[in-house]
């Protein structure tokens, strides 16, 4: 059993089905490429085959992309001269995709067999780069499908022809949001943007693709036609000039010049736009090799994809029964407390938001109202949703309302005494099993835990401001923090869909331990830099 299989129909259409073993969604592996290549050779050389449809064996999706674990390790597997190994490997991939695109045509664009891609749903990364090499892309009308090239989000860029083909298909300006921001669209939007060619009812997907393949369509890509001009203009065309001037400025402004991948992507686009298509693919491969050789890409893949996904799925979670939070207590309705209450209520958790006077508690609850109003204004929320979220937040001064809470998060003033008093008062009302967490950013957890007579049920859950937008949450283990407290914190963070890291109770924990030295060095360096100007 291989990832790609082919079935030749009596009508002369060979259907190649992609079905990665042991995965719910197709991902491309190094082993799968030669299989695909062999099937294409077979179909192109078989006189009984009139055309090819490439589709997926997974219901509702075409492919999730390249296996990022593979990309992260490509450099290690590329031999003694890794840059050469990577470059040659990429060129071999380009050769397969280019074979699909040329489909047996001669150098005067005669002959060839039509190849259609039929996407049942989500098509990301190489899952879109492969269809882009085909002659027509059919997408099932599946509103939950996501189509795009998200590579830039993990420190690389579409390096298997996606960059070169998309820019030539749509123009640099139109391709920019897809390439530079990794923007994903549903099939209808992808069609209006010009990424896919046809959106058809899911049940008709294969038939429509077959029908097209048998209709003797013209299959020459615009860039393989004589006199091709890039939509929107190449860099030294008056309109293209402005696009390219602006692209560097926008990328630099938005990324503060910090990320190598968008720079490499832009260079691949610029240099590629000035030369014939096959040369452009070679340039793309050179820049992609450059990015794979840059340690930032493997580090970003590791942190932003592999580790992040593992953490969000519960890596580091101690073995403990389900600790999902049903009722959350929040002490202190200031900026942090109000934010924590909001994200918990959005996740369907009942919240008791406590402050010293009713007015302050209400102010904390009104933060959630303002946030939901903003969402309604942008069309991302409804009045009903707002009412539901607000209905889950009980803003009160009454500590007795904490009864039944299985997690209490304390977000009061950063002072040992104040925090100890709040902790004691709250625990007096809470049940024996309640886990107590402090949102402190700097005070040692083990010291704060002294306010509790069950230090194994005491833990740090450190949010960042603004809570609604900051994805990272630090979970800090005190000296005596027990496994159930850690599991509770992790299950809570998963409920509110943030990214947890579990750290020990060291000075400033993790994030501030990184940030504070950076800013301190910056302040120290700045006057010297200023004098040098």
């Amino acid at each position, binding site marked *: 059993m291989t990832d790609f299989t082919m079935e030749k129909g009596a009508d002369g259409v060979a259907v190649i089905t992609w079905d990665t073993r042991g995965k719910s969604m197709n991902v491309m592996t190094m082993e799968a490429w030669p299989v695909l290549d062999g099937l294409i050779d077979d179909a192109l050389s078989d006189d009984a085959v009139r055309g090819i449809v490439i589709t997926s064996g997974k219901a509702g999706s075409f492919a999730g992309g390249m296996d990022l674990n593979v990309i992260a390790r490509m450099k290690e597997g590329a031999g003694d001269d890794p840059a050469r190994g990577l470059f040659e490997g990429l060129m071999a991939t380009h050769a397969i995709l280019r074979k699909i695109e040329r489909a047996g045509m001669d150098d005067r664009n005669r002959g060839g067999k039509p190849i259609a891609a039929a996407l049942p749903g989500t098509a990301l990364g190489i899952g879109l780069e492969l269809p882009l090499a085909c002659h027509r892309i059919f997408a099932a009308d599946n509103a939950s499908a996501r189509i795009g090239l998200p590579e830039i989000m993990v420190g690389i860029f579409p390096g298997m022809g996606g960059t070169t083909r998309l820019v030539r298909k749509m123009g640099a300006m139109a391709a920019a949001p897809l390439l530079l921001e990794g923007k994903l669209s549903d099939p209808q939007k992808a069609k209006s943007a010009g990424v896919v060619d046809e959106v058809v009812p899911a049940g008709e997907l294969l038939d429509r693709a077959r029908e097209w393949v048998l209709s003797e369509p013209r299959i020459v890509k615009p860039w393989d036609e004589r006199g091709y001009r890039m939509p929107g203009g190449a860099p030294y065309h008056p309109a293209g000039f402005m696009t*390219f*001037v*602006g692209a*560097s*400025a926008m990328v630099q*402004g938005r990324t503060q010049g910090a990320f190598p991948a968008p720079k490499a992507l832009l*260079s691949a686009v610029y240099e590629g736009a000035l030369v014939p298509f096959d040369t452009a693919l070679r340039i793309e491969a050179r820049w992609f090799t450059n990015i794979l050789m840059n340690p930032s890409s493997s580090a970003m893949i590791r942190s932003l994809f592999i580790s992040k996904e593992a953490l969000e799925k519960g890596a580091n979670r101690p073995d403990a029964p389900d600790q999902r939070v049903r009722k959350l207590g929040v002490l202190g309705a200031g900026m942090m407390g109000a934010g924590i209450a909001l994200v918990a209520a959005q996740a369907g958790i009942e919240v008791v938001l406590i402050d010293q006077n009713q007015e302050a508690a209400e102010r904390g609850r009104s933060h959630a109202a303002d946030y939901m109003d903003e969402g309604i204004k942008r069309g991302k929320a409804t009045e009903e949703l707002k009412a539901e979220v607000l209905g889950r937040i009980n803003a009160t001064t009454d500590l007795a309302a904490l009864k039944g809470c299985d997690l209490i998060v304390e977000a009061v003033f950063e002072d040992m005494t104040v925090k100890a008093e709040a902790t004691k008062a709250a625990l007096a009302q809470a049940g024996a099993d309640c886990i107590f967490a402090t949102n402190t950013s700097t005070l040692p957890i083990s010291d704060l835990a002294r306010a509790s007579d069950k230090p194994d049920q005491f833990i740090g859950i450190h949010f960042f401001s603004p809570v609604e937008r900051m994805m990272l949450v630090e979970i800090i283990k005190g000296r005596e923090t027990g496994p159930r407290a850690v599991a509770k914190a992790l299950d809570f963070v998963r409920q509110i869909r943030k990214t947890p890291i579990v750290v020990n109770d060291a000075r400033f924990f993790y994030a501030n331990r990184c940030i504070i030295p950076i800013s301190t060095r910056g302040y120290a360096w700045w006057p010297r830099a200023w004098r040098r100007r």
Partner: protein
Amino acid sequence: MTDAFIYDAVRTPRGRGRKDGALHEVTSLALSVGVLNALKERNGLEGHAVEDVIWGNATQVGEQGGCLARTAVLASDLDEAIPGLAINRFCASGLEAVNLAANQVRGGAGEGYIAGGVEMMGRVAMGSDGAAIAVDPSVAMKHYFVPQGISADIIATQYGFSREDADALAVQSQRRAAKAWEEGRFARSIIPVRDVNGLVILDRDEHMRPETDMQSLGALKPSFKDMGEVMPGFDAVAKLKYPHLERIEHIHHAGNSSGIVDGAAGVLVGSKAFGETWGLTPRARIRQTARIGTDPTIMLTGPVPATQRALADAGMEIADIDLFEVNEAFSAVVLRFCQAFEVDQARVNVNGGAIALGHPLGATGAMILGTLLDEMERADKATGLATLCVASGMGAATIIERV
């Protein structure tokens, strides 16, 4: 070392660089030829009289491409033995042509040169020759490329020039240029542009707006605010290079920046022996030349280090210079020059500058050198310095002294 002298300097009037500008019907070649022929006739040059024609031009594409210098020599009345060299130092091309000619003479490579330049900005659009520094991400991002207008606004922000400072300089430029024309101060240099039949097409600078005042300028919107703050957001790039600037103040607009015009200018440069051969009297000695590279993001601060270098090499101090021509590419460039050297504006651009008269990129350097020399003679001053800021972060300067 042989001294290099200026024997003559001529320029065309500057036409508005638009489709309805008076010179729009004239080719870059014809305008260049007019200048070359004028220098030949006025000085009685015959045959292989000069070693070369060094011709500056910023946008060397289309009719301004293909080594216009050589084409212009062939189309002119000059001998075909004179070759022709096209050069590009952007806005300082015309001055750089003179500097190169002077240094060739000083070094003994020939006795005489014609040096100058042309730019028909209404016919060959600025930037139409492309520029990797603007569009190739590998260099644009590395060097924080921003367009010149943003650079001028960075200068204003960095060195504290207000919109009022810039507008006041613009009003002064207009008043001085109008007065110079009234009093015939450009008369010696101006060669009217004529058609094939000898009919005059333009004999006076066309871009001037003598009625300009602070109020009329105040109504103009800043030209570079949108591209800086909105699309594509060059201010963010500028602030990466100049992180201590909290924001960029956008003070420049069409009225306090140089005008887009068509024009050409030429200078006859030669040794003492050259003058003797042709019976010419030297008007000034080219005392020192300088060129320099600077930060390409703020880009337009080159006149300060170029001037410092020229002065140091000449063993002079700023106080030794009687008159200055500092190209008015943008108000802030001139304001910065005066601030850096503590020079009174009474000694700078006394007959107006490019804000009033226009800035035909490749020609301006030769034009302002001629204007400087005319004024030194009229006001009986001994020394003068001409300098220009240059795209991509460069500067050029020339010191001349009367003989």
